[in-house]
């Protein structure tokens, strides 16, 4: 018995309390366990029809690219109708809470991995680096998308504007703060930059991030911040690692959801939360009219009734990941803004030649000074329901040249959302204000 006691006492120093009470559960303690957490494609990538996805959808639901007939809107739950009509005040329901909670769940997984990685030896192996880079990337990816919904557009007041409630640890008992918008973006960029050093050039699965994905994400972030030079440079770094693009001529048009999942031009695969827009929204004349008849996207993106069928996740949800096409568009826009019209045209045409009916494709015949607005229009055509349209609205509305007022018609009344409006930022669910006291947004 003394031996038992001695063994137990020695054992106390390590492991005695670490064996889990219920042996049916596993304590994550190996690199493989961490990788398995990151490879949970349901939580991290939202790769399922029924489950929730990690990217908030409130913004995309609020653009005027899609609309609903009046009788459908009448059957909407109150909050959905309020959001559809850009009502400043709205009450939370389960959908608005999920738009907040599900992204933070992905953040929690990342934080669990980052917290536990510190305990694993040896550190900094290839496998450990990949896991760490993955966790940092996911956390940054989610925060970036949350910032497009729950923080004001990035602008000159970023230092004083409120950012996001940021959780950098997995312990649910620890309090957390809501730093400024500038700090929020700084943390996001730091995470991605660190991830870009740790991740491999090309991932084993497209549900995992890579260097190419990290650069693409940096490009998106800098674009939103208006740092066009950095955005363009990162887009080109990403293209250098992965320049594959999907030729829409090769896509089978007879399929209900024609776009193949994990196709060639996908750099990183992730889904947005499903919403009624995804299933029942009808494309607006405004958007549909932007496509030329020989633009393959016109039939590959939209069903004859006007429903969106062009998600890169096929029928399983709305794709919110990264593609070569988006990289090309960022490169084109930033090059144009920097005055490098040759580079801008080259990237834009690379995309266009894969989007038009093969023998009907013609290069653009427009002046340099019209190029930027054409690129911006191309972004709206290409990146439908990926979260980009919403963040582009927030970004471009600050420039009167590209600002756009949105309209909706409902019940014989016309509703509008002015370019500069507090309705471009959503309310934080009231549940979060208790008990941590997160300050609420103005709307």
């Amino acid at each position, binding site marked *: 018995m003394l031996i038992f006691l001695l063994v137990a006492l020695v054992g106390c120093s390590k492991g005695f309390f*670490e064996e889990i009470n*219920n042996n049916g*559960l596993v304590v994550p303690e190996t690199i493989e366990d961490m990788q398995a*957490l990151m490879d949970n494609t349901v939580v991290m990538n939202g790769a399922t029809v029924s489950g929730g996805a990690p990217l908030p959808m409130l913004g995309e639901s609020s653009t005027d690219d899609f609309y609903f007939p009046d009788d459908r809107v009448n059957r909407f739950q109150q909050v959905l109708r309020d959001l559809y009509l850009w009502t400043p005040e709205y009450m939370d329901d*389960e959908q608005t809470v*999920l738009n907040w909670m599900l992204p933070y769940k992905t953040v*929690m997984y990342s934080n669990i991995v980052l917290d536990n990685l510190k305990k694993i030896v040896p550190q900094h192996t290839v496998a450990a680096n990949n896991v760490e880079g993955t966790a940092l990337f996911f956390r940054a990816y989610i925060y970036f998308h949350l910032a497009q919904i729950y923080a004001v557009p990035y602008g000159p007041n970023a230092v004083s504007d409120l950012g996001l409630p940021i*959780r950098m640890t997995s312990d649910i008992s620890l309090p957390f703060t809501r730093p400024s918008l500038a700090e929020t973006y700084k943390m996001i960029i730091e995470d991605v930059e660190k991830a870009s050093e740790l991740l491999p050039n090309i991932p084993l699965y497209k549900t995992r991030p890579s260097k190419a994905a990290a650069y693409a994400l940096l490009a998106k972030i800098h674009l939103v911040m208006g740092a066009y030079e950095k955005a363009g440079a990162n887009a080109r770094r990403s293209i250098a690692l992965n320049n594959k693009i999907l030729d829409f001529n090769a896509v089978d048009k007879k399929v209900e959801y024609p776009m193949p999942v994990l196709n060639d031009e996908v750099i990183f695969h992730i889904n947005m939360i499903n919403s009624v827009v995804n299933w029942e929204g009808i494309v607006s004349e405004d958007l549909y009219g932007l496509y030329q008849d020989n633009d393959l996207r016109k039939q590959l993106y939209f069903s004859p009734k006007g429903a969106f069928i062009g998600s890169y996740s096929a029928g399983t949800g709305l794709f919110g990941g990264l593609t070569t096409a988006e990289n090309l568009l960022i490169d084109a826009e930033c090059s144009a803004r920097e005055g490098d019209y040759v580079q801008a045209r080259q990237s834009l045409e690379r995309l266009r030649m894969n989007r038009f009916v093969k023998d009907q494709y013609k290069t653009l015949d427009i002046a340099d000074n019209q190029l930027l607005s054409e690129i911006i229009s191309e972004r709206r055509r290409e990146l439908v329901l990926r979260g980009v349209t919403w963040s582009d609205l927030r970004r471009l509305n600050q420039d009167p040249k590209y600002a756009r007022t949105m309209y909706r018609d409902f019940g014989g009344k016309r509703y509008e959302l002015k370019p500069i409006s507090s309705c471009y930022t959503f309310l934080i669910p009231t549940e979060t204000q208790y008990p941590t006291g997160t300050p609420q947004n103005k709307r």
Partner: protein
Amino acid sequence: MFCRKAIILLFLFIILPFLIITVSGQEGSPVSKSEIIDNVGGRDTVKNLEFSAIGYENRTIRIQDSEKYLTVQLVPKVYSLEETTVSTGYQIKPRERVTGSFELVGRSQIDRRIHQNVLEQLNGRVASIRFDVPNVSSNVTPKMNIRGRNTIFSNDQPLYILDNMAYDGDITLINSNDIESITVLKDAAASSIWGARAGNGVVVIRTKAGKENDRPTVSFNSSLAYAPKPDLSRLKRISSSDFIDFETMLFNKGYYDSQLTRPYPVAQTPVVETLVLLRNGLIDAQTASSRIDRLRTIDVRDDVERYLYTNKLVQQYGINIRGGNSALRYFLSANYDHNKEDKVKNSNNRFSIRSNTSYQLGKKLELTSNTVFSQKTLTNLYPSTLNDLTSFSLGSGKFLYPYAELAAEDGAYLSLPNGLRDTFKESAMEKGLLDWTFTPLDEIYHNTSSATNKSTEYLFNPSLLYRPIEGVSLVANYQYQKQVGNQQTLRDRNSYDVRNLINRFAQVSATGVVSFPIPVGHILQTEAGEQRSQQGRVQANFERSVATNHHIDAMLGMEVRENRIIDHSNIAYGYAERGLVSVPVDYVTRYKYYDASGSGNIPYGVGMTSTTTRFFSYFGNLAYTFKGRYSLSGSARVDQSNLFGVKTNNRKVPLWSMGGLWHIHQEDWFKTDWIDKLSLRSTFGYSGNVGDAVGITTITLSNAYLTNAARADVQNPPNESLRWEKNRLLNFGLDFGFLKNRLSGSLEYYAKRNTDLLSNSDIDPTTGLGNLSGKSVFLGNVATTTGNGVDLTLNTVNIRQPKFAWESAIVFSVNHSKVQEYYSQSTTAQSYINSNNSVTPLIGYPVYTVFGYQWAGLDPENGMPRGYLDGEISNEYSKIMNAPVGTLAYYGPAKATVFGALTNTLRYGDLSLTFNLGYRFGSYFKRSSISYAMMATSWAGHADYADRWQQSGDEKRTDVPALVYPFNGNATSFYIGSSALVEKADYIALHDVYLDYSVRPELLKRYGIKSLVLKGYVSNLGYLWLANSRGLDPFYENTVRPQKSFTLGLNLTF
């Protein structure tokens, strides 16, 4: 002179007929009166005479040779507490030095109450203990609260300590015959030494041990208890005639039509079947009404009582030998019990052997070793519903209808409808399916399936005590405990249960070939569980008096504990005992059920679970006593466990206590004749309660969608601050003894605050916790409750005559509790309309509450129930039920706030009679009543049917709503939850009576018998007074209750 002394002596004999005079030099054996006369009168060899009598101090008189007469004056005895030491499991301390709150049940009390369950020994004897149900059953560990409930959702049961070590097993394996004493630790000073597991109080059980220099004593116990069959007639069940009228009404309204025309029709009662025949013209009206009228006279309870229940018999035997010398002390015992339960075919037995030995290894070293083997076997009829009236299932959610017949008048067993309609079953049988008829008595007496549950315990508890110098001792304890539970359910191939299962899965091919995916044969289900617990402890004790006035008592130790539970279950189809054959089955295919009710897999009974709980603790306490009058004590304990969060483990914050004690009666200035004892005690401290929460991250493993890579899901998010629930206790105690302790006892007041209570609670969704319905909850330390109360124990010696004595013991407790903080609180009224024993915490109320919808009586127009909505009488039931909680009528707690017992003991010579009254006040319950819709679907109805509203004016005499069809479900829910059904639960009951007769030792001497005690014991004697005017049993309102039990026993010592 002679004359006077003789008269005095004579007088003594008259008033003290039970005076025992012992003559020295004769080995202390008592002598009779006549011998004494001879001795005193004549011989002069006698030197010493010892006089002893009940109620008086013994007195020894030395007789001078020359002395012929003597006067003996016996001094009335000052009664003292029987046991003067209490055990905390770590230390045994003299009662006069403890500051904490202890309650003790000693051996003489334990020996008198003949009960299989050792915990029944606490019932009505210890203030502050409230058993959930006052009648403790023999085979189940009874639920109890010490000083009320200290938690909301976590374990609320006390920690049990057996011979110094935590006992993790089944407490009912312990036999009362082996028990020396039970100490209940109630306050922080007493229990905080047990740290994070002591929050619900601690019950310390000590087994008997041999004494030094004690000659071997053999003791034999035996008892036989009898309880008659349960009384089913008191159950409030609808009469057969009423039920038939109800069914006829429903039949005429077409209620059964869709059930009858379905291709796979559900079973119907004989009345409905008769009405169908009548409607189809297969029988005439006269035949139908004569059939139905015959059924009106039948009460199923007659058959049930006759065939499903039997008289209960409990036999108990025990033998033990104890003794000791300077080198060895021992206590060896063997016990065997056999119970025949009141449900037929249910029986159980219990066997245990125990060896408690202590070896003196030299002057300084002592080895004590307790070894126990015990086994309990329960054999029950399977399915267990077959011998239970209230749960007797007839398939498809139906129960025994009021006029069901189990046997014909000639005794032939009858079949009953079960599951599917007989016509459907007959056609299935024609196709080649197994016999599908259900004949209950065949199931019980012929094709008997049984479930045998055997639990075996091995316990080895050695300890080493080393006393290097006076006052210092080092103790090392170890305990290995293994409990193996083995449950075997053999489902007989001919039983309805098995035939029904095989038939449900039977597949009929297009060509009419029947195949059975479940093989025709027995089904054997096994479940094996094993619990292994190891505990080790090293401890140093120091106890010394410094000078004469200072006494120091200190202890320091550490302890490590591991408890592993492994459980696996298995199922074997087509089992045959001969050759141990079983047949493999296809668990993968989903089979369509034969009755087309859906499809399913063959039940897969293979499962495994395993848990490991580990604790590492260190602790110490210190007590200082000055002049024997003033004591101060302090204790602290640090627990670390794999149950807690990392932070809790690292922080090492001890649970601690402090206490003080003042013996006022020992003060020089306090000298009063009539006060023998007056002491003040007070303690303050913390103990804890471990919940089920896990503070570390856990994951489950599977494969990822889209990539098929290994995937992990977080099951338990990290919550490093997750900690045990904390119980703060403040205790004041007053111990007193007046009039030579003829009136003695203690009065205590306590206040508790239970913080960090674990509960599922809303959490900020920013943490990422939550489910897809948008609800973010987690298990956290989120609630606070408070409690306070008074415990009073009063012992009185009312009459103390030599021949006759009357003593009383009063146990009185008050306990109030209140929820102070709770984060996720529901606001709608219906959340709080729960059955009597479920918990829905509401701030400002006790943990268990009785609420009712405000009742506005029945509507005189239509007899529908009415409540209040916004202050107006209303029948908008769903609005009333969803109104804010404040609209409810609050009655009070569902658990008694004032409770206790009164024990009276009468002694007349060698005969003593004790009777225990138990009482509880201050709580409420909801009685049962009729739900028409449920009666239609379940065939079980309530007698209130007869009292229902039938015409205007009835609302003055009854609250039972009218019967309307179609049924109004909301009206029923409202009525069942309304205050019309709330009753007071207060009662006074005669708990038990025991009668002992000790045969005079001098009569036994010639047989070599030291003592013989004959005992009678009667329990469950029922209520003397009930607060509710309907005479409803608050605990068994409409369920079968335990019957009066009569026990005869003897105790023989050689």
